[in-house]
């Protein structure tokens, strides 16, 4: 027996391990220089009692450490835990246990031990912060410092027995122990029914984490990635391949994302309906072309913002956009007139209802007119910072867009009031809403000679003119004459407008106005405000006089007397005093929901006492920057109006 003879070892007696030095007669005793063989089954020459005693002695000497078990053993133990309560309790024992638990996929739990809902006797305390939308659908949000891997692991374990996590929003990350791929992997393993995932501003998440999610959550429908600098095409390609139910994708400021993933997503996600791509410098024409050509049948909402794409890509969007209803093109510096013209004239955008073109210097009158002509269903248009669009374009646009309902022009400085007003006369019967914001070209116009009777626009219901410095009383008078059917008006930030300009408008729209916003009109006085309230007391629901410094209690008294259905009232930074507030508070017929008195310098503690009597309908009260209102009173006000949202 050569192997046994050459047995290694030293000549000292071993003091470790299971040796029984007192029992020399035992066949199992092994001095190192001698070997004996025992054939199975084992047999000891000692009796059971002695054996048990020895066992105990050794047990007492050595404490047990489950932590000495390797992770795979701990994994085997934890995946056999009998119930939800045990899993939750184990998750709180130590970080090692938590990380092993969160690495268990639900498919790895033996069926006999899996419980989807806990015993009724063991019903856990439901955390008030969490919104449980229905039994099956749970939503979690982690923000800022609370966004850590550990919390994600805990969510993954606990959601398993409450019916499954369906929405997860992670906004920000803890600065030192924040969200990494590990946390996402835990979610991927524990939440197979995840449908909505939003990851905002989490710098350490990489493609590996996103791939884990793709593997573990095949039912993913909406993915939202904002400012994730380490995520690239690889991660998104994994999502495209494994999540065929994807309907909505939003990728913003992810510097490594490029064209390849768009190709994959277009090809692999047949249900893709909404895509937003913003500020991704590596995305170019080819990616957009691949995306729209493959997903054209389902894609309904497309938003492209701040990308290095040109005419070719836009033309393809038009050509393949058979299903597009909402299109936003923003910050596309490289798209020229030709791009927009081709996009429209391919006649592909037949279902387009709403289009927004922002900061695209390539949009000209020709492009705008083409869009109106070739998209018959167009209802809403928003143009911002399109400096090349001029009066001719607007006119042609209105002539062609017969189903147009709403137009918003912002910072389009080449447009003058002439075109707007003449457009209002030729517009289609459905045109309801016009909005002019910061358009520096809007200045007073003189009535064209020979025009005796000024035609009117019967369909316009909503007019907004905001921060157009050239808009003064004369323009206002014209508007008042042309638009008799207005219900909602916003005429704000117009430093040049005074009472004189408003009177004609108030007269023509008397009895119809529902929402009136006249904020930041410093020249407005009680005269106009009172006239407004008198004429429209029965209908007016929202009245905003924020920043109208000359409005006083007289207006408030008129409001109290005339207004029947008023719900929102803003008198911030006006000359309203305690008297006015007292009148408001005691007006029982007024069921105000929202009241703002911010920055009203004339208010004192008396107002606070009056406000305590406000009715139960009040949902919001704004008393910011009221210097004369002191803190003692405010505390008691908070108590009295406990149902109301107070801004102090």
């Amino acid at each position, binding site marked *: 027996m*050569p*192997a046994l003879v050459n047995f290694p*070892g030293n000549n000292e007696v071993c003091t470790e*391990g*299971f*040796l029984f030095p007192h029992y020399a007669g035992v066949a*199992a005793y*092994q001095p*190192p220089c001698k*070997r*004996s*063989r*025992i054939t*199975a*089954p*084992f047999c000891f020459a000692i009796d059971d009692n002695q054996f048990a005693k020895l*066992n*105990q002695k*050794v*047990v007492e000497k*050595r*404490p*047990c*450490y*489950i*932590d*000495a*078990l*390797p992770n*795979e*053993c701990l994994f*085997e*133990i*934890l*995946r*056999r*835990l*009998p*119930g939800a*309560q*045990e899993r*939750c*309790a*184990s*998750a*709180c*024992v*130590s*970080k090692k*246990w938590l990380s092993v638990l969160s690495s268990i996929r639900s498919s790895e739990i033996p069926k006999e*031990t899996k419980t989807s809902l806990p015993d009724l006797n*063991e019903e*856990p*305390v439901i*955390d008030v912060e969490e919104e449980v939308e229905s039994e099956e659908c749970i939503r979690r949000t982690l923000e800022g410092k609370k966004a*850590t891997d*550990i*919390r994600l692991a*805990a969510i993954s374990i*606990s959601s398993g027995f409450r019916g499954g996590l369906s929405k997860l929003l992670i906004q920000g990350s803890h600065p030192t122990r924040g969200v990494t791929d590990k946390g996402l992997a835990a979610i991927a393993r524990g939440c197979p029914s995840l449908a909505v995932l939003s990851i905002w501003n989490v710098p350490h998440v990489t493609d590996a984490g996103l791939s884990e999610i793709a593997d573990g959550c095949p039912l993913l429908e909406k993915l939202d990635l904002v400012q994730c600098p380490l995520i690239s095409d690889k991660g998104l390609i994994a999502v495209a391949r494994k999540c065929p139910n994807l309907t909505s994708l939003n990728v913003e400021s992810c510097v490594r994302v490029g064209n390849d993933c768009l190709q994959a997503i277009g090809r692999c996600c047949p249900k893709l309906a909404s895509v937003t791509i913003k500020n991704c410098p590596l995305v170019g024409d080819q990616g957009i072309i691949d995306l729209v050509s493959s997903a054209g049948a389902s894609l309904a909402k497309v938003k492209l913002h701040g990308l290095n794409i040109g005419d070719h890509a836009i033309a393809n969007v038009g050509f393949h956009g058979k299903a597009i209803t909402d299109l936003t093109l923003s910050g596309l510096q490289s798209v020229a007139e030709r791009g927009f013209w081709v996009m429209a004239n391919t006649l592909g955008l037949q279902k387009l209802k709403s289009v927004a073109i922002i900061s695209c210097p390539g949009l000209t009158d020709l492009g705008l007119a083409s869009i109106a002509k070739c998209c018959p269903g167009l209802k809403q248009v928003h143009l911002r910072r399109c400096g090349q669009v001029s009066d001719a374009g607007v006119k042609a646009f209105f002539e062609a867009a017969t189903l147009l309902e709403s137009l918003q022009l912002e910072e389009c400085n080449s447009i003058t009031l002439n075109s707007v007003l003449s457009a209002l006369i030729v517009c289609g019967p459905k045109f309801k809403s016009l909005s002019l914001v910061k358009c520096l070209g809007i200045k007073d116009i003189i009535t064209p000679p020979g025009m005796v009777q000024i035609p009117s626009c019967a369909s316009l219901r909503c007019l907004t003119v905001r921060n157009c410095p050239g808009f003064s009383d004369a323009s206002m008078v014209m508007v008042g004459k042309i638009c008799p059917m207005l219900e909602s008006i916003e005429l704000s930030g117009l430093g040049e407008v005074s009472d004189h300009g408003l009177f004609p408008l108030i007269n023509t729209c008397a009895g119809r106005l529902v929402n009136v916003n006249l904020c930041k009109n410093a020249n407005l006085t009680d005269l106009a405000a009172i006239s407004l309230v008198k004429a429209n007391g029965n209908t007016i629901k929202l009245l905003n006089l924020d920043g109208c410094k000359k409005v006083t209690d007289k207006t408030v008294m008129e409001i109290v007397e005339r207004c029947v259905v008023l719900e929102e009232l803003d008198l911030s930074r006006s000359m309203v005093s305690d008297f006015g507030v007292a009148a408001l508070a005691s007006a029982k017929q007024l069921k105000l929901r929202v009241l703002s008195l911010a920055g009203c310098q004339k208010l004192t503690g008396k107002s606070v006492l009056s406000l305590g009597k406000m009715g139960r309908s009040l949902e919001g009260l704004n008393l910011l920057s009221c210097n004369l209102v002191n803190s003692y009173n405010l505390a008691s006000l908070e108590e009295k109006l406990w149902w109301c949202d107070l801004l102090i």
Partner: protein
Amino acid sequence: MVLLRSIDEITVEVAETVALKSNMLKHALEESNPEQFIPLPNITGEVMFKIVDYMTKQTEFESKKPQEIVEKSPELEGDVAKAKEALKAWEQTVATWEVAYMDVSMNMLYDLFLGANFMDLQGLLSLCAEKIASLIKGKTVKEIRKTFNIVNDFTPEEEADYVKKYEWAFTD
């Protein structure tokens, strides 16, 4: 026959059929000289004997497992029922033996688990894991830490997070 040697230099001899129950031994036997012993560097003598006991008994049970008859003809229906009963009885015997076998101290339980893991014995691994899992059953977090001598390594912040979320798991 196969020779196994524990870390404290105790040897045991087992039949080859028994040894093949362990995947690790199966691979080792393919590679090594049958005259040589197979060292088990992580396992002490007592644990080795316990594991060998398991392997031997399992082999015995396997050999005695009643045949399942899957015949669909009506004459053999009686036989099918009998076979099912016999199988049930056999499963009961195995289960009873396993319960008695697993009635060991905590130390032995860990050592057995490690041993089963090392020797790749799926059946014993499963038994040990289930036994330890059953020790966790019904316990709160503090009790689990006490039973298994685990040190709490969560920071106070993290723990506060938990106490709020899983309060019910902490109730004593």
